[in-house]
């Protein structure tokens, strides 16, 4: 992992990063299983393959820093500190979910850790992240906001509107474009003309392209940008080159009409962010293979317990249906 500068200071940090990546992968494997066994309502979008992006970035943030997430949001949620139990409960529409079952996969949020929520409108959170940065600046807090979004979202005009304002006002926001090569069933080069980083640069925003499968590269760059953003040198733009292993959503199984099995295999076999980081940890003597296996197993156990818990957990009471429409009205339809 030559590209990475070692700025994390100790093994504990590395292991936590590794663990967070494994937690995401494990979470997604379980979510996919829940879908395939018809235990999960609706559809969901898997983050598997992109773990180094969410973890590399979120490990450079404080709890008080904010993120906004996407329809492919489980990874961001885990990386920003969320617990499995509340997450699975949310995916299953249960009362103990982060959003009391009202949001589900596409709206999972965890405000206690600064995750302002997944969003089912592609590009819909770009203003929100920029606004969180605005708030921080107005209140004199040194918080930073990170906006996660896909390559497909770069087609939404909202992005250019808020980048313009972020640049004019030097807001502490980092736009993190997860370029996984596809938006739904379409290749990125069919929907994005020119250069994505040049678009940010045209607004006077410093932009970087980085290997999104290299968690240390992502983390190192993010640490630098976050520090500078805290000092008022923002905004910044990152294009993270990555890949999603599953289909667009869990139901997108036959996908050879838009991408080849070979291509998928290549990314999985040769660029997997977890495999690469694990090898590096062992090489550097930070962990033994056995320690890693134990860590993996512990995460798996956590996840399975959380799934079991969530499957048994109660749905919200029907009376909740008209709660939380307004902050000050217990039941909107009473």
């Amino acid at each position, binding site marked *: 992992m030559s590209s990475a500068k070692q700025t994390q200071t100790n093994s504990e940090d590395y292991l936590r990063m590794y663990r967070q990546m494994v937690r995401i992968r494990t979470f997604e494997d379980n979510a996919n299983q829940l879908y395939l066994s018809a235990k999960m309502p609706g559809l969901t979008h898997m983050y598997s393959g992109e773990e180094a992006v969410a973890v590399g970035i979120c490990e450079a943030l404080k709890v008080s820093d904010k993120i906004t997430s996407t329809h492919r949001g489980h990874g961001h949620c885990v990386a920003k500190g969320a617990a499995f139990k509340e997450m699975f409960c949310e995916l299953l529409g249960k009362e103990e979910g982060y959003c009391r079952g*009202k949001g589900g996969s596409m709206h999972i949020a965890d405000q206690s850790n600064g995750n302002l929520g997944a969003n*089912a409108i592609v590009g819909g959170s770009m203003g929100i992240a920029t606004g969180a940065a605005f708030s921080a600046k107005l209140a004199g807090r040194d918080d930073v906001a990170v906006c996660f979004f896909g390559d497909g979202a770069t*087609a939404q005009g909202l992005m250019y509107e808020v980048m313009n304002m972020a640049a004019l006002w030097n807001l502490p926001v980092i736009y993190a474009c997860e370029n996984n090569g596809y938006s739904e*069933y379409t290749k990125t080069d069919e929907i994005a003309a020119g250069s994505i980083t040049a678009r940010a640069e045209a607004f006077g925003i410093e932009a970087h392209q980085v290997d999104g499968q290299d968690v240390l590269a992502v983390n190192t760059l993010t640490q630098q940008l976050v520090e500078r953003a805290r000092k008022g040198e923002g905004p910044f733009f990152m294009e993270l080159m990555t890949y999603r292993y599953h289909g667009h959503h869990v139901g997108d199984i036959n996908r050879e009409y838009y991408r080849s099995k070979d291509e998928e295999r290549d990314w999985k076999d040769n660029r997997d962010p977890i495999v690469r980081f694990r090898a590096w940890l062992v090489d550097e003597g930070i962990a033994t293979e056995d320690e890693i296996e134990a860590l993996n197993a512990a995460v798996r156990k956590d996840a399975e317990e959380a799934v079991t818990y969530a499957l048994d957990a109660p749905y919200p009471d029907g009376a909740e249906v008209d709660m939380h429409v307004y902050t000050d009205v217990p039941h909107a339809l009473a």
Partner: protein
Amino acid sequence: MREITLSQAVNEALAEEMRRDESVFIIGEDVAEAGTPFKVLSGLVEEFGTARVVDTPIAEPGFMGIAVGAAMTGSRPVVDLMFGDFLFLVMDQLCNQAAKTHYMSGGKLNVPLVLRTNLGATRRSAAQHSQSLHALVAHIPGLKVAMPSSALEAKGLMKTAIRDDNPVVIFEDKLMYNDKAEVPEGGDLLIPFGVANVKREGRDITLIGTSSMVQVCEKAAELLAAEGISAEVIDPRTIVPLDEATLVASAKKTSRVIVVDEGHQSYGVTGEIASRINEKAFYHLDAPALRMGAMDVPVPFSPALEDLTVPTPEAVAEQARKLCAGEMIHAA
């Protein structure tokens, strides 16, 4: 007669119109090879090519605007908006531009475009993928609004929409894509706008349902029939233009009315239709025209909650029973 799904019906309508008229094209996200996430458009790109079945980036305001300009200059775009919830993104191009161009130009410019999108909850898709927003566009003069309630209606209304010289918004019920109905093969199935469809005749009460709620009303009518209550079921088909005459005539006949619609109840479709009936049939009514819309809450994800938000056949039947028993007199 052969049966086809609503999805096939829409596909056929588009194919037939695209064959008939070279200026018709489809534009939207993943409409070509993918044939949309609902697979409604499968096969069209193979027949008509990528010049006429146009995959766009994820830029709803942008491709809506392009469609408006194309429509003003001799083309007849069919815009594919993947979810009705994304209407909020295209409102400016649809309502400030498309809807007003003919009027603002004193009749000189036309905008013959179709915006096809969908409505309907209970698909566990949560608050931003489940809305039924047809009331919003119905409020804007210059737009026509069609609400097919079956495969047959979907085909006939789509073909009419494509030939209309005005901007038409057509809402398909995404829960109904696989529902089958008898649809005649070939021929030119055109269902005129502004002509309501009396789906079932009845004496005691009129149930007016739109789109997804037509089936709900029909099922409610069956429940009621078993109890000896004879319900008339009417599908307005288009809410702009609205066939007020047929609705009012039925109300005068049965003297009791429930309007059922899957949009939020408040400031929505039910208020308009109920008001018109109250205005025009007041002295014939036993009780006020009642309304059953979707609950005035964002659509919740949890199945335990979501199913509570939409009118069901049982709930409609229950209201109808009360109306027929005269119980509403005390409520009002």
